[in-house]
């Protein structure tokens, strides 16, 4: 369960740049078993929003409840219930796949048999046993992606946050990620993901929020958006919402 309430993030002015209002009092919610897609161009505020939900960044004002915990009041409990995956979240190259996943399990307070069992199950489910003892730096992109997925799942989080998870991946790896996101919904997890790829959003999302300049300009199921704008193609809808010039 994710409930976002007037969430804002302002990056203070520095020598090089003026004050940036990256996210402007946005509100939305996402139920268990639902995929919410944040659709927006680069710089629209997607990453900042998701980072606030994962409590990597602190909101300037407003708040959000993730898995029942407030991101401002109890950030550590939020992190304990969230799996966060983005292309920016790299792996420790000198750890083996297994060591890496176990390390994150330990950081989530797991230990001993429970940890080993959870890791074994994950490695079998994701078909990773052939490279479990290979160092992450030696893995192919697809294998790395699997390790990242296992890393986000090791503590069996209720809420999954994906920040542009397919950027830079080839077709096969991107499809695997998409399938994995779908699986998360099947297992009743609350899923939010950001993308600027229209086809991905069309295929996966139960509801879509179009974000631009830190504001959510339009929100609804794909069907609702299509009826409201009288257009079939999500890209056309998107352009109509955010305006042609941007």
């Amino acid at each position, binding site marked *: 369960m994710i409930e976002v309430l007037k969430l804002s993030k302002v990056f203070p002015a520095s020598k090089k740049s003026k004050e940036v209002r990256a996210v402007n009092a946005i509100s939305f919610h996402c139920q268990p078993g639902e995929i919410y897609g944040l659709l927006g161009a680069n710089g629209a505020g997607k990453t900042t929003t998701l980072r606030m939900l994962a409590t990597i960044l602190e909101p300037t004002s407003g708040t959000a409840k993730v898995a029942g915990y407030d991101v401002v009041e109890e950030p550590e409990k939020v992190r304990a219930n969230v799996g966060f995956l983005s292309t920016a*979240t790299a792996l420790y190259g*000198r750890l083996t796949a297994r060591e890496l996943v176990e390390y994150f399990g330990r*950081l989530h307070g797991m230990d001993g048999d429970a940890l080993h069992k959870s890791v074994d199950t994950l490695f079998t489910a994701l078909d990773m046993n052939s490279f479990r003892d290979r160092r992450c730096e030696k893995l192919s992109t697809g294998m790395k992606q699997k390790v990242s997925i296992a890393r986000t799942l090791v503590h069996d989080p209720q809420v999954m946050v994906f920040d542009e998870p397919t950027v830079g991946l080839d077709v096969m790896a991107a499809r695997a990620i998409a399938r994995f996101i779908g699986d998360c919904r099947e297992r009743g997890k609350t899923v939010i993901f950001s993308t600027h790829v229209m086809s991905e959003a069309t295929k996966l999302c139960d509801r879509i929020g179009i974000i631009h300049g830190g504001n959510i300009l339009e929100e609804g199921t794909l069907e609702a958006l299509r009826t409201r704008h009288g257009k079939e193609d999500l890209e056309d809808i998107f352009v109509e919402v955010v305006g042609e010039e941007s």
Partner: protein
Amino acid sequence: MSLRNIGVVYRKELVDSLRDRRTIISTFVIPILLFPLLSVGFALLIPTLINKAKEEIPRVMIVGGENSPLIVEALKKDHKIEVVPATPDFETQITDRKIRAAVVLPGDFDVAANRGEAGKVLVDYYEGDIKSELAQKTVKDMLNDYRVDLAKSLLTAKGVPTGLLQPFDVDKNNVAPPEKVSGSGFGGMIPYFVIILAFTGAMYPAMDLTAGEKERGTMETILTSPVSRTDLVLGKFFLVVTASLATAILALSSMGISFLLAKHTIDQQISKSDPGFHFALDPRGVLAVFVMIVPLSVLFSATMLAVSLFAKSFREAQTYISPMTFVVILPAIIALLPGVELNTRTALVPILSTTLVGKELMAGNHPWGFIALIFASSCVYASIAIGAAVTLFNRESVLFRS
């Protein structure tokens, strides 16, 4: 703060670092191989060079000795110097190192000296050139001997007892135990070495675990874990301290072992060039120095963590950290200057105080009041630095500086 979580982070960083070739080189290879090679090498090389310079028979000119065969003969007699024919450009020849020194005799020296009116004999040499200085010393000693002999024979001829030339004798007697002698000399260098090593040992991991992680994108990954940022930075901090102390311990032990192995040769070499010098070190002194280094190593580790945390990339961290090397070397060098002593003011200057008290400890002195003051003040500085590192790590503007 959770000890378990700090331990989990620490163990992971340890495994990670031990697999990193660059850590292995900076923590193990350099201290084990380089420093003993340098220090033992120098210890062996310097006496060898001095002895070699001493073995040379210097070429010396005697200027103005044409009608004074007695003194010229006396200088030639022992073959300690090679007398070469005089030329008017003797000064240039010294400068060009064709000859090492020149003796300039006043006119009619033999005759005048017998009357006690010869005036001054000049020994020309080139200051700063060790071979010329040695030649000058040899020639001066020979002239002194000749003068005493001449005086004795003149007095005898007049029936005066020669003992009057030297009514009493003066001799020196060293009461400091050998380890104190070397403690103030070579031993005084050891704290300095250890401080530099404690700094360089912390340098690479401090940058790699902060700026390096940002650069590789693992910082964001680790921040998604429920472990508090304070636990994360403390786990990293303990790893940096470990590397810092390990570097210093390894370098010290490896230097110690190489010295023990080379001790015989060094003792021989050194006593040949300086009979008053004996090589000995007090192991308790070394240990005490080490205890004093611990808070300093904590200070180094926390400061470098805080500074490199600020950097976006490893390279940027390097540009911040490299100048800090001078900040560390400078007080350590000041402490080696003569006249800089331990007092309540210097005891409060970090690094400088540790070098100074280390010098005392190596010399077998235990100024307990200062030891307590320095240990306490270093601990205060170290805690401030840890506080700064923890605070910075909790600030997202530092972690996500762009």
